[in-house]
């Protein structure tokens, strides 16, 4: 309703402006002349000053923006390579602000300074090779620097050393949910294909693959601090994108292929929550939520819960109607906590076993070690390994 009012106000405003210009038109005595719609010296003057005013607007708006909205942007990176990205980003920002500040001043100042006047004549000047060389070479040199730094960082981040000691985790995307699969003790993921999806085995893991025997499937991602996590991503239906904003990490999940990204978390969830900027951010968000809650409660609805920070995995490639709500909580643990958490999870193989056994013997407790199962085929294959 309020916005309808806003729109009405806007329309009225538009009408007012239109009326004003009409009046302005009528006051121009020589309005019968054919040239009345061409800028006069008075117009040049007014518009020249407005150009100068617009320059002030751009500057004030930029400063206001950086001051008000600057604190909203992603802060301290939570991954090892994040500092590299942020550093390059900051250098680029310095460059951008410098160029922006200079060029906008020149553009709008010239528009003001050289506003037309019928007694004046423009300078007859069309070319200067030296000037043009300067503004071709300077950008070229600066960009060469940026490109080199960028390529260095890119190579460092994207090329994953296979020999490195990493934790291999599969991220599995489907409309509109994330699942994670841990490679287990052998640190190798079992083969998988959507054609093998059946019952509990929602990821289509090939249960006959020896590497799959110790795989663990979970719906909340836990990763250890200080260890490189090697994500292998799959999607079962459409394109998704695994986006970890705080870790400066993103990679698309593509049906029919496996994509990769690796990063090392450097703050546990608890440590990151305790960073001063985050305490401030959460307090700010909670103030907003408290205010909204009051409104909701007044309307007879339930209020909002207070917010505590958690790392999130978001979907960042349009994937369907509920794309806006495809997320997974990510917890960074200390290595000890991580080990403990993982050891409490059951393997996929035993979960499948349990689900099959359930109708006959619901009490059959799934063992933690898949080698204890009576699945002879699996045992044989593990023995072969």
């Amino acid at each position: 309703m309020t916005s309808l009012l806003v729109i009405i106000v806007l329309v009225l405003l538009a009408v007012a402006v239109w009326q004003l210009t009409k009046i302005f038109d009528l006051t121009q005595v020589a309005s019968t002349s054919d040239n009345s719609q061409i800028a006069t010296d008075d117009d040049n003057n007014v518009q020249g000053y407005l150009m100068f005013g617009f320059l002030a607007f751009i500057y004030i708006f930029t400063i206001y923006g950086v001051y008000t909205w600057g604190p909203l942007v992603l802060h301290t990176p939570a991954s090892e390579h994040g500092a590299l990205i942020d550093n390059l980003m900051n250098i680029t920002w310095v460059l951008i602000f410098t160029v922006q500040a200079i060029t906008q001043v020149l553009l709008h100042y010239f528009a003001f300074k050289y506003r037309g006047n019928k007694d004046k004549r423009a300078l007859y000047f069309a070319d200067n090779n030296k000037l043009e060389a300067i503004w071709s070479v300077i950008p070229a040199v600066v960009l060469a620097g940026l490109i080199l730094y960028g390529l260095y960082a890119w190579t460092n981040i994207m090329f994953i050393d296979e020999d490195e000691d990493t934790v291999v985790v599969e991220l599995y995307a489907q409309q509109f949910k994330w699942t994670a699969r841990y490679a287990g003790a052998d640190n190798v993921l079992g083969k998988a294909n959507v054609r093998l999806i059946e019952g509990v085995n929602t990821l289509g893991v090939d249960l006959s693959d020896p590497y799959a025997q110790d795989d663990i499937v979970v719906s909340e991602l836990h990763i250890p601090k200080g260890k490189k996590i090697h994500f292998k991503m799959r999607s079962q239906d459409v394109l998704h994108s695994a986006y970890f904003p705080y870790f400066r990490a993103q990679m698309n999940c593509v049906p029919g292929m496996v994509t990769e990204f690796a990063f090392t978390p450097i703050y546990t969830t608890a440590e990151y929550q305790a960073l001063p900027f985050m305490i401030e951010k959460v307090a700010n968000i909670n103030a907003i939520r408290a205010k909204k809650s009051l409104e909701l409660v007044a309307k007879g609805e339930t209020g909002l819960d207070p917010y505590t920070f958690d790392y999130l995995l978001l979907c960042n490639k349009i994937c369907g109607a509920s794309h806006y709500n495809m997320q997974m909580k990510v917890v960074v643990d200390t290595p000890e906590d991580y080990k403990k958490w993982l050891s409490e999870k059951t393997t996929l193989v035993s979960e499948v076993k349990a689900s099959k056994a359930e109708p006959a013997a619901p009490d059959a407790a799934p063992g933690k070690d898949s080698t204890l199962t009576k699945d002879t085929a699996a045992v044989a294959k593990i023995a072969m390994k």
Partner: protein
Amino acid sequence: MSAEGHDHGHDHEHEHHHKDTFITKYIFSIDHKMIAKQYLLTGIIMGVIGVGMSMLFRMQLAWPEESFKIFNILLGDKWAPNGVMANDIYLSLVTIHGTIMVFFVLTAGLSGTFSNLLIPLQIGARDMASGFMNMISYWLFFLSSVLMVCSLFVESGPANAGWTIYPPLSALPQAISGSGAGMTLWLVSMAIFIASSLMGSLNYVVTVINLRTKGMSMTRLPLTIWAFFVTAIIGIVSFPVLLSAALLLIFDRSFGTSFFLSDIYIAGEVLHYQGGSPVLFEHLFWFLGHPEVYIVILPALGITSEIIATNSRKPIFGYRAMIMSIIAIAFLSTIVWGHHMFISGMNPFLGSVFTFTTLLIAIPSAVKAFNYITTLWKGNLQMNPAMLFSIGLVSTFITGGLTGIILGDSTLDINVHDTYFVVAHFHLVMGISALYGMFAGIYHWYPKMFGRMLNKNLGYVHFWVTAICAYGVFFPMHFIGLAGLPRRYYTNTNFPLFDDLQNVNVLITTFALIGGAFQLVFLYNFFSSIFYGKKAVQNPWKSNTLEWTTPVEHIHGNWPGEIPHVHRWPYDYSNPAHEEDFVPQTVPMKEGEVVLHH
């Protein structure tokens, strides 16, 4: 050349004996000036639809899931029950907004209008090389517009897989509602659009190469023509690739092929597709998709070059450098498409290559920006509305272009890819800039099109409100993007993390609504001036180019007598050897007059 021109003129006299009926004059016209107006009118209608849609989804973003009567009125009970916008239709609005603005408004509406109007007039030709093909080109565009609008009304909803229509989402009706009949119509409409665009482009290229009047060498062409010429070449090179992608997608959708699909499990069953790759589609799409942004922006820059020189009463600075940068941008534009795909899963090595080529584009772009600024220096600036929009274009082109340095750098793209930062970037650098170019062109050549003047005061109001609102909308958007907010989210309320961005979204929407509402000022000015505008004189802006030597009243064949000959380059403004501060291209060189180095 002159003999040909003469023949043409002779044919033309014959034509005069036939009286034009209403249909041949206003509907199935083969006159480039009428076709230009048809393009413009269709473009404006599509623009109203496209911009209107953005108002609706901006309201949803600022006041998520709130009830608005206007939603119910415009979207109906199915898509906005009780006035609350549904998530499917939100994505449809975003998708169709993108499609309409990029292709129907800024490609056909901008390039179609001004290439048609100006190429024959500025090079001194009676008409396009093939007037008939030109007519077909417009009517195919009209047909594709009709189909696109029809797709809004199909029962399962319009296409909503994003304007990039990445499969499998766009290929599988099970994946999203809009991938049924809506997507079929989208693809058919775009296939026809591409046919239209190719016919237009071929015509422009042939006309520029063959039909220049005597004395109009390539280095005497106005920069508008250079821009349209090179744009047409980019279109010919890249649009067929999108057509092939669209056709292959139609095959996947309708005939069970697996070009883009593989290993899919959806709605509880495994589909038969095997061996295809969605990444292949991304390559094909962006092979057009990236040049497309230059197809949009180059004509706008061409228009700006002409208007800035004319209104500065000063030769354009670095004419040859401008031509070289247009050509360099065109060449580079075809080898940078991969920067849309840094994190698509393609080999990271390709990311390095595309970073390199992408950042190279900054060099010719910087040259253009600096040359515009230098043209203003010591000019005698006539602040007509067209000039304001041109200066505005340079401003947003710089602001938007600079953030391209971030997005073109694969390393930095990792974290801002597909966030609102991207939305802010491309709207400023190609959306708003190209729109300003289009407005500038309309204000400048309106007298040529309709023989009347637009009201300048309404033009000033239009410009200043638009300029403030454009920055008001897209500048804050950079920040919410840097905060990690993904684009194409129906609402952010599921992420308390983003609660502190809501105020910014409200501000953006407020600016958008004001800016959108003030486009009505332009529409009123445009339509009322056709009938009630002040009558235009032959050369109102005291410009040098040939179109202003034609009579105000349109005639078939443009010039009543012989086509004028050209004796000098188009930017001889404030030449001290002449008394007036402009010297039309048709004025012969004086005895002993030295050509200014340019």
